[in-house]
């Protein structure tokens, strides 16, 4: 069933809030990065997007949020639909107003704004003062470290602290769909676990739909409802977390447990390089 170009229907998990169909992305007019990517994100669910370096995960998120244009990238084919509406022509600020918020890779905090001002900017599109105040409080609850640093310039935070700040901004926006690009990057183990708890909580309490790009596949799949695996600009495998976890290749490349020996292997014992098995090339 097609309505306004978007598709409603039979995702195994329900209504497709976001849908990408055969998306092609080209950088600088010549570099083809997404080669006909299709995926969909059901409403209210967490979808994990996995893939190796350079597979095009970040590019996918930027294509959705419209930030591609500022990097000389362009969606040249296919379509992106959010709640049935085509998205690929919209400027990023409109995308945010429609309810999609992206936490960009590599922290990207406003370095010469204070921590608090950064958090305020996360809620830029909202106008409910009370709600904003409550959400800001919630951010500080999640990350007490940030409360301590409230009046400090974000540029002086440590890497992990900046990552917390970047996530807080997303919390402030209260989007319908939150896209997180490697949220655990640079966080200490304790916090990594905490972040994933927070993501799950947001998903459950606020009913926020989440598209999660993450290298820590173990954790990502542990909270996700569905997963996609990308290689060189295409989806090569998708399914529910159980299915993915049991796939031998996924085990080997993403979970770090595969290789047949069953148990966990030591980095030290890797005697020789493993040739990466190409899934599709």
């Amino acid at each position, binding site marked *: 069933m097609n309505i306004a170009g978007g598709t409603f229907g039979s995702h195994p998990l329900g209504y497709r809030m976001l849908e990408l169909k055969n998306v092609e992305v080209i950088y600088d007019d010549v570099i083809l990065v997404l080669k006909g990517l299709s995926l969909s994100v059901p409403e209210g669910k967490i979808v994990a997007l996995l893939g190796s370096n350079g597979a095009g995960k970040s590019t996918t998120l930027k294509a959705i949020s419209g*930030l591609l244009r500022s990097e000389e990238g362009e969606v040249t084919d296919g379509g992106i639909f959010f709640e049935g509406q085509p998205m690929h022509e919209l400027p990023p600020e409109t995308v945010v107003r429609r309810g999609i918020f992206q936490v960009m890779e590599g922290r990207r905090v*406003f370095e010469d704004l204070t921590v608090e001002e950064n958090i305020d*900017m996360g809620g830029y599109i909202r106008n409910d003062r009370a709600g904003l105040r409550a959400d800001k409080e919630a951010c500080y609850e999640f990350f007490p470290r940030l409360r301590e640093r409230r009046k400090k310039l974000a540029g002086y935070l440590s890497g992990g602290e900046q990552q917390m700040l970047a996530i807080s901004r997303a919390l402030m926006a209260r989007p319908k769909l939150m896209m997180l690009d490697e949220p655990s990057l640079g966080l200490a183990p304790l916090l990594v676990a905490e972040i994933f708890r927070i993501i799950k909580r947001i998903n459950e309490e606020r009913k926020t739909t989440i598209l999660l790009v993450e290298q820590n596949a173990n954790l990502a799949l542990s909270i996700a409802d569905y997963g996609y695996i990308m290689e060189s600009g295409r989806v090569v495998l998708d399914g529910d977390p159980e299915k993915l976890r049991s796939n031998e290749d996924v085990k080997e490349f993403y979970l770090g447990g595969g290789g047949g020996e069953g148990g966990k292997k030591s980095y030290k014992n890797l005697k020789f390089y493993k040739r990466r098995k190409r899934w599709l090339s």
Partner: protein
Amino acid sequence: MEFFLQLVLNGIVVGSIYSLVGLGFVVIYKSTSVLNFAQGEFLVLGAYVCLTLTVQHQVPFFWSFLITLVFSALLGILTERLILRPMIGEPVISLIMVTLGLSSLLKAIIQGIWGTDLRPFPDIFPAEPVQIGPLPVSQGYLISLVSVTILLIIFTLFFKFTRSGVAMRATAFSQQVSLSMGISVKRIFALAWSIAAVVSAIGGVLLAGIRGGLDGAMSFFGLKVIPVVILGGLDSIAGAIVGGPIMGILENLAGGYLDPLVGGGAKEVAPFFILVLILSIKPYGLFGKVKIERV
């Protein structure tokens, strides 16, 4: 001693005009990281519009001044729409260059409409100077001193406490990240350029009133004010306000004491000399924000 005091005092009042024009630079820089080389033309354009309304169309000065401000705001919006919007996301240096192009274009438009001959500007200030201590001061300077103080307060509050103000600073840091917050960079640009154009127009009208005449050459003021904002710190409202009088004082002292010794020219050069000295102690000007460089 009286000579000295007179020089200092004159520096302060003359510098208030620098501050006023400098504010326009700071507002644009603060929200876009761009140094606007067309500032001088904004100044002249504002003054010409006001002049035409009062002289040619006999509009009372107060009203033509108001209309001028509205015109300038529209000019800012137009500039954003036609020139800056297509440049969103481009390197800052290209944006700076585009303002140079804009400066040429506006110059031509001004020449095309008003020609190059000098036009007398209506006497908008009472001719009688006001006596401050030992020195008579033109009322035009006094008005600029007052406006500068008011604008200082308004802008400081604006950038610190309003959401648009903070968003402007955010945009200056990174347009891309701002976009990802849902901040409309277009709107921010339009706002910044409108504010700058309005402030410039105020400066232009005051300056033309003080000079008593108006021609395109007055746009040199745009360039002249750059060292002032650098001295104060490019992104600091307070810096522009303080930088103006300091520059004014330096100029006057150099003019009063050095010029007779070296046969002229010191009034222009000496402030630069001191500027470099100050910068070597405070590399981001007196109040400018240190650029965060971390690894």
